[in-house]
């Protein structure tokens, strides 16, 4: 893979190994005037912000827009990788009432940091993308749900929206075409589960962020019980470039099944953690060693999580050869998820990592269904017990047993997300658990007592953990 010039974007580690700046190369766009004047990368070189939406409004039918996005092969960037154009086509065309676009800016997956930079540095690209999507699905209203902790994103995107209203880009008569398009920035209030699409809709409706039953799918019955399309911030921000440059520009990059580009955020034990826009299919080794500067001197790769804390850990340096696309990551034993790469070197203890992840999921479980509400807490308690020196070999089986009870038996994917990384750690890194257990007093007491029967002291301890 040729290493092109680093792209000067956003001031934060935006380097691109493809010879083009992936989406465009705005530098810290904050105001509309900037956005309109600065060159955005398109192959034929015609620059200008809000050019794509004007082209769409004047020359393209909703079906043509959907076809273009379908042809580009754009896949949702929020985690599941569902084809965006196909999703847009699910909205019933003849539905009489209002339809909605809901943009998912509830970025909260540990390890992910990409959407906030789009919202803070190129908010207009997101707004333009939303307008293109609204045209395609026939919606007149967008809600952009942003997690409450992102005060800066909320303020900067809101400022950009106000600019658009003032200039007539949004409102009841956009660009003088008589079309209505509204955009509302909606704040969350600190709940990871609200990133799950149906929970996000509950939250927009003003309720607790509990997931809803599917079907009906949101494209048929979503927010306020009206057809709703939910897309990640990054997915929507790709739309202007696809319209401007054409689907072929997108499919020319990446792999056949995962075309185009993706922002990857790299954190953990690397020299230069940061985020970059890359082509799908770039080997993970290139991302870790060339972009993120490699590991610290003298360290070796122990494990790598390609898609944020919800994905299984890939063991050892085999991870370097895994191509970074949806299919490649699955074949490598994990998932691409939100493309949040967490790098773990040989100084890291897997039990500690999983205790922390379990704590996260136990805290963020919404409590609606029992497997996840109870299971995540048990996983936390067991990890804590092992780290406190009270583990036994049975704890490994117990963890797998609990995971079997959560996986595919929870109401929403958060349960799976909590279970997968722990399963991969227990199955692929049992030595880390065993090292702790062999040091534990309970394990050694059990060993002295002969095979199996727990000492009275042991059962008391277990009872305490159960009660806590």
């Amino acid at each position, binding site marked *: 893979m040729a290493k092109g010039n680093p792209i000067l974007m*956003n001031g934060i*580690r935006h380097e691109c190994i493809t010879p083009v700046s992936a989406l465009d190369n705005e530098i810290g766009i904050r105001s509309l005037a900037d956005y309109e004047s600065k060159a955005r990368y398109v192959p034929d070189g015609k620059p200008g912000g809000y050019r794509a939406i004007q082209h769409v409004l004047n020359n393209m039918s909703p079906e043509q827009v959907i076809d273009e996005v379908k042809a580009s092969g754009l896949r949702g960037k929020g985690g599941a990788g569902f084809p965006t154009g196909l999703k847009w086509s699910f909205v019933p065309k003849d539905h009489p009432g209002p339809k909605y676009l809901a943009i998912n800016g509830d970025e909260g997956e540990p390890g992910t940091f990409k959407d906030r930079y789009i919202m803070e540095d190129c908010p207009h690209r997101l707004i333009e993308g939303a307008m293109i999507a609204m045209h395609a699905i026939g919606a007149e209203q967008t809600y952009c749900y942003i997690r*409450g902790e992102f005060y800066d994103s909320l303020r900067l995107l809101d400022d950009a929206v106000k600019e658009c209203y003032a200039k007539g880009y949004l409102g009841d008569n956009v660009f003088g075409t008589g079309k209505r398009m509204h955009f509302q920035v*909606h704040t969350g209030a600190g709940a990871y589960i609200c990133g799950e699409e149906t929970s996000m809709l509950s939250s927009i409706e003003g309720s607790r962020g509990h997931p809803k039953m599917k079907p009906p799918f949101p494209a048929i019955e979503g927010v306020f019980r009206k057809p709703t399309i939910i897309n990640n911030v990054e997915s929507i921000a790709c739309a202007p470039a696809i319209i401007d440059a054409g689907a072929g520009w997108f499919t020319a990059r990446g792999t056949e099944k995962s075309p185009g580009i993706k922002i990857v955020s790299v*954190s953990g034990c690397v020299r*230069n953690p940061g985020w970059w826009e890359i082509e799908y299919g770039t080997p993970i080794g290139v991302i870790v060693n060339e972009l993120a500067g490699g590991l610290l001197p003298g360290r070796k790769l122990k494990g790598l999580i390609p898609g944020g804390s919800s994905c299984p850990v890939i063991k050892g340096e085999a991870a370097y050869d895994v191509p970074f696309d949806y299919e490649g990551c699955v074949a490598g034993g994990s998932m691409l998820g939100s493309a949040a790469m967490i790098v773990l070197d040989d100084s890291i203890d897997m039990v500690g990592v999983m205790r922390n992840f379990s704590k996260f999921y136990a805290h963020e479980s919404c409590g609606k269904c029992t497997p996840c509400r109870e299971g995540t807490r048990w996983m936390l308690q067991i990890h804590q017990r092992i780290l406190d020196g009270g583990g036994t070999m049975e704890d490994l089986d117990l963890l797998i047993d609990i995971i079997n009870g959560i996986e595919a038996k929870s109401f929403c994917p958060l349960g799976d997300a909590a279970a997968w990384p722990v399963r991969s750690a227990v199955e692929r890194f049992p030595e880390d658990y065993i090292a702790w257990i062999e040091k534990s007093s309970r394990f050694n007491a059990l060993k002295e007592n002969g095979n199996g029967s727990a000492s009275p002291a042991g059962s008391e301890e277990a009872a305490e953990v159960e009660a806590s």
Partner: protein
Amino acid sequence: MPELHTKDINPAELPKQITDFVKGIASQYPNSKAMLIPTLIEAQKYYGHVTDEVAMAIGKLLKVPYGEVEAVIDFYTMILQKPTGEYIVGLCDTWNCEWGGAAALKEHFIAKYGKGVGEITADGKFTLLMVECLCDCHNPPSLQFLQRGEHFTPTWSNNLTVELFDAILDDLAAGKADALRERFVRMEKKQNAPDDRNWVWLVTTRNQYPCVLEGSGDAMKVIDGFGKFGDLKNDNPALHAEIAAAAKEL
């Protein structure tokens, strides 16, 4: 600091900041309940936390039964029901930040003030809250200072060491105007530099910047960098002096 309502309030008596906020966004929603969470957050910005009385008034204003308002307040961790210090110190302790040293910052805070998570320090200045991943995992440990006032004013402070954290807390308590300014943490040689110039990473309490240094000794200067680095070059002479001092050691 605005006055706290501790008695039942008529929704019409809610401060203008809140009622204006509701008026401003009402046209975007098909019903008023959808405005509940944003309005509670706005009320919290105004009062610092949400009391039962304020919640009840907002419920009446938006025609949402009080039980549902309570259910929402209970569910969302960002809606605070207890008063806090002037600054909320929101410290992330999810994995990257735990690995980056969040526990040491937490211990330091507790030892320094003798107050645990969620409590107000004796001088009324700080409340430490542990939060889950702030999606700033490339700058661990990451924390956000939120200053109460008529609005919450957020400031990120990342890449913190215990010494820097301590200095920032002292400066804030002493009311120094630039207490939350961007501070220099460390400098590293950049691997895989895009050209032959002297590329380094500047790690500050806000971010990590790739940039180019020129000259030597006291004349050492940052001459180029990526995007937002412009701020650093032009607007922050104090930081620049710190960098020149550190560059001598690189």
